[in-house]
């Protein structure tokens, strides 16, 4: 399992985000953004400007700009959740596009769960293709076991489950699931779901989160089919 290579590759493609803010209002935000895949610079704004905004650049290319106020509400988990990215106001489309390639963000368990449900739901709706799911802990798998069995049994989905070799239940009957086992230091480190889109690349999505401290995760979630494919490759 070579997810860290994927993280590194993402790191190489860092964007530059320039936060223009009057006074220090943008500092806190700059800190939050630095957890993402971006270099953050802060510049002062003319005092007469109405509010802060940020500009995203990739090399010398302008990618997009948005008001800080809009970004804050976008980042607020109570207003937008990842699975709503498809349904957000078209005005937010550029924000989504900016962040969509690869979202690199600090997440807590609740957000990870929500994102996981979205990926499962998407896989279920498409009904074919391959869904790969890694569980850090046996209890997490036990809690989802029936759901995944049903998912595999009632659709054409090929469901692969990755478990720590020391946590596979005795006399385990995988049923319609394909079970892989791996060492604790890799499988146990990541919470991941990869769905290849079942032939429709617009449906491909992935969540790969690494536990950095108990209950806190550094995660990558993406709707970019190439990144999803790379992630799947790194599992083999």
């Amino acid at each position, binding site marked *: 399992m070579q997810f860290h290579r994927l993280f590194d590759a993402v790191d190489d493609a860092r964007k530059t985000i*320039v936060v*223009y803010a009057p006074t220090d209002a943008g500092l806190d935000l700059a800190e939050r953004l630095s957890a993402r895949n971006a270099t953050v610079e802060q510049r*002062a*704004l*003319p*005092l*007469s*400007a*109405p*509010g*802060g*905004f*940020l*500009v995203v*650049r990739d090399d*010398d*290319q*302008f*990618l*997009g*700009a*948005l*008001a800080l*106020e*809009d970004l804050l509400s976008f980042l607020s988990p109570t207003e937008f959740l990842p699975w709503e990215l498809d349904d957000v106001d078209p*005005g*937010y*489309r*550029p*924000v989504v*596009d900016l962040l969509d390639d690869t979202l690199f963000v600090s997440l807590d368990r609740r957000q990870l769960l929500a994102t996981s449900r979205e990926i499962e739901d998407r896989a279920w709706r498409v009904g074919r293709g391959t869904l790969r799911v890694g569980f850090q802990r046996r209890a997490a798998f036990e809690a989802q076991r029936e759901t995944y069995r049903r998912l595999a049994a009632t659709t054409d989905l090929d469901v692969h489950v990755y478990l720590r070799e020391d946590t596979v239940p005795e006399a385990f009957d995988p049923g319609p699931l394909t079970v892989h086992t791996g060492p604790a230091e890799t499988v146990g480190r990541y919470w991941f779901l990869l769905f290849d889109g079942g032939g429709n690349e617009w449906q491909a999505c992935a969540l790969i989160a690494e536990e950095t401290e108990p209950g806190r995760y550094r995660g990558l979630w993406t709707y970019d089919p190439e990144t999803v494919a790379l992630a799947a490759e790194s599992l083999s």
Partner: protein
Amino acid sequence: MDRDTDRPDLFTTADSWELADDVAPPPTALFKALAGPRRCHVLSVLLDRPEIAVDDLTDIIVGWQTTIDGPAGPDEWAQIKIELVHAHLPLLDDIGLVEFDDQAGEVRLEPLADPVQDVIRFAEEYERVLDRSGRPSE
């Protein structure tokens, strides 16, 4: 306390205006320069950053607009850059407020007389007041 220090420092008083050798266009030209929020914004930005690359200026103008119209992408950026390069900056250059070097992609603010700077700040402030009160600012 001195009355003058009680005033917001936005404006100098006419008594203290010194034109010296600084740029001070005739009113018609000055108000033409300020006609249109885009050029006002450009001048305000230049008051803070008197020398700036056109690309950076475009970033700021586009960003400024996002606080009113919502997020912007490369199309909006290209559109605004075209406006700046083909209309607004040449006009400001003609009036003598800026020096626009199209080749180098740079703009420099000329040394503006105090009242000219005040009028620019006033125009910007006025737009904000209108905006805050929900009245049309364009």
